């Protein structure tokens, strides 16, 4: 077959396909809409998957720490009851003394009772940190910054500052604001004895912990929990000196502290994700099902399109057009519908992501849970285009087989 003939046929196939699509604008619009929804489900679910992973990474990145030391794989969203590192300030002091470490500090996590009166307490996660850094983005009030050396000095037996930062939803639930007094303890009994002042409102650690969280000066939280003596913490985090290699430093510290798990920020994320295999598998399954569902939906659509055109296809076959040409006609319709559906889905994805992120932020407290890198847009568009065309070609080829003259008698 000469190139000229092929071009002539190609142009005719495209013209025929476009004419068929124009003939039933309602059906065409519905088919495009169905492809759009199929692709949108894929891009939104993929955005959710990426968002969950990036959220974890960002949580660690925002903590601005290069190395994370723990006693066992720690799930930071597991309500913070694990504090397996003993003598945490001592470990931080030893690390800070190293040339390849610029600073180190412990982080403790506890479940505490908190309330505006000793008789009205509710259970919330609390994080003990040496300071509230500039990423806290306070809605009201301010944070705290412990005195220099507090991160490496043994904690006091009693709370010293008696200040804390509340998540806005906790503040609303308790009916308190900046300057008000709250009671906090690891049991209802100890809470009556510990009065703290609310100095700021921020949900920074809530995004990291997965639920509305209190942020408390580290030593005060240890004192409230009664672990000042053993100086327990969940993590000891460290900043690596500018010229030092993170992996090498982590490996070196790991040899020095074989009883601890020493990880870089990246491997800590992987470890946490590894702890959530079921969640990840569920997410991957959802995305896989979305892709599969999208392809099946598209396949059904084009099988229907071919079925609806069976009499016309049979007539074309009867007048001598080949199965390849018929498949090309349906395939081109699939390409055009995939193109339109892909463009619409790509255009609708940011809107859906913004809407779902607002919903997620208002209901669950997760800011920007869904994230859509360019690869997701490209993948969604490619899925619409490739799946639409291939599925339509197959449907057209099959239709060419059953497009017999029987269909012309009806």
């Amino acid at each position: 077959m000469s190139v000229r003939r092929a071009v002539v046929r190609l142009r005719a196939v495209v013209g025929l396909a476009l004419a068929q699509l124009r003939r039933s604008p309602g059906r065409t619009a519905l088919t495009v809409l169905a492809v759009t929804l199929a692709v949108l489900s894929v891009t939104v679910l993929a955005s959710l998957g990426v968002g969950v992973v990036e959220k974890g990474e960002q949580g660690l990145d925002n903590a601005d720490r290069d190395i994370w030391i723990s006693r066992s794989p720690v799930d930071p969203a597991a309500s913070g009851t694990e504090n397996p590192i003993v003598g945490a300030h001592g470990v931080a002091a030893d690390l800070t003394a190293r040339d390849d470490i610029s600073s180190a500090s412990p982080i403790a996590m506890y479940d505490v009772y908190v309330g505006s009166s000793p008789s009205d307490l509710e259970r919330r996660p609390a994080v003990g940190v040496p300071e509230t850094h500039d990423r806290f983005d306070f809605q009201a009030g301010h944070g705290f910054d412990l005195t220099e050396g507090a991160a490496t000095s043994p904690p006091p037996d009693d709370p010293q500052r008696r200040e804390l930062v509340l998540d806005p939803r906790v503040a609303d639930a308790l009916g308190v604001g900046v300057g008000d007094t709250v009671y906090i303890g690891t049991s209802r009994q100890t809470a009556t004895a510990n009065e703290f002042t609310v100095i700021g409102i921020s949900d920074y650690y809530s995004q990291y912990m997965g639920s509305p969280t209190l942020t408390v000066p580290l030593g005060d939280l240890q004192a409230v929990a009664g672990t000042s003596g053993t100086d327990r913490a969940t993590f000891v985090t460290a900043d690596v000196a500018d010229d030092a290699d993170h992996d090498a430093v982590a490996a070196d510290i790991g040899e020095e502290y074989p009883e601890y798990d020493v990880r870089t920020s990246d491997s800590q994320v992987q470890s946490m994700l590894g702890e959530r295999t079921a969640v990840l598998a569920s997410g991957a399954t959802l995305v896989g099902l979305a892709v599969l569902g999208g392809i099946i939906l598209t396949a059904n659509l084009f099988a229907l399109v071919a079925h609806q055109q069976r009499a016309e296809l049979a007539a074309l076959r009867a007048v001598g057009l080949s199965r390849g040409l018929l498949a090309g006609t349906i395939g081109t319709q699939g390409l055009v519908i995939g193109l339109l559906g892909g463009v619409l889905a790509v255009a609708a994805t940011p809107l859906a992501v913004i809407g779902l992120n607002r919903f997620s932020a208002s209901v669950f407290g997760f800011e920007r849970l869904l994230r859509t890198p360019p690869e997701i847009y490209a993948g969604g568009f490619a899925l619409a285009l490739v799946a639409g065309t291939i599925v339509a070609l197959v449907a057209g080829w099959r239709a060419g087989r059953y497009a017999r003259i029987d269909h012309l008698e009806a």
Partner: protein
Amino acid sequence: MFNRSAQDSRSSAIEADSRESTTAVRLEGVTHQYGSGGGRLRSSDERTVTALRDVSFDVPMGSILGLEGPSGSGKSTILHAVAGLLVPTDGNVLLCGTDLTALSDAERTRMRRRHIGIVFQRFHLLPSLSARANVALPLVQAGISRSDRRARATALLEAVGLGDRSTHLPGELSGGERQRVAIARALSTDPDVIVADEPTGELDTATGADVLELLTDIGRDRAVVVASHDATTLSVADRVITLRDGQVDDVR
């Protein structure tokens, strides 16, 4: 009006004379059972329906053969067999000397494209295409350029009296006009054989007469096989075969 040498300069008068003297279509002992490979009945269905029993006839070039008989007598099955749209269970179907039963589906499609034009009772024009585009459609497969396709389609539409309707969609045409477009489409590849299934079945008497006149013109240098219940339609035929229960009952 439809002299083939006038339509296609490639056809010489000698070739036309040669065609007139040859047999365009020959059926030799054709038997067909649906449900035994013909495909209409599922394999799980034990019933078979014998649509044709040992049917034989010739259609010379330049003649019109009429097929009559009650519904289910086998008229359409013969048309399908002649057009290569089905392969009979037994017997041979020769189209311009080539046995269609020995060919693959793709080869039969090529034979149909080259030698057969089909006119349906219900026209089966593509509603999304203009009359001219419908007529030009069979030429797409041959890779004929758009301008040549348009020129040939326009000439054929003028020949069937629809020169001023070439840009109209089928939905904008009357039944008779649609059938004339369908006839022009059947002629677009300059086939040797025209197969027409109830070509006037959807038309009123006056319009049907116009279509029959067209078929008569076409039959001067082609073979035409026309199936119909209608005696007026069959009156244009040089020979009429009456079918009953899939068998030839009478030839006149």
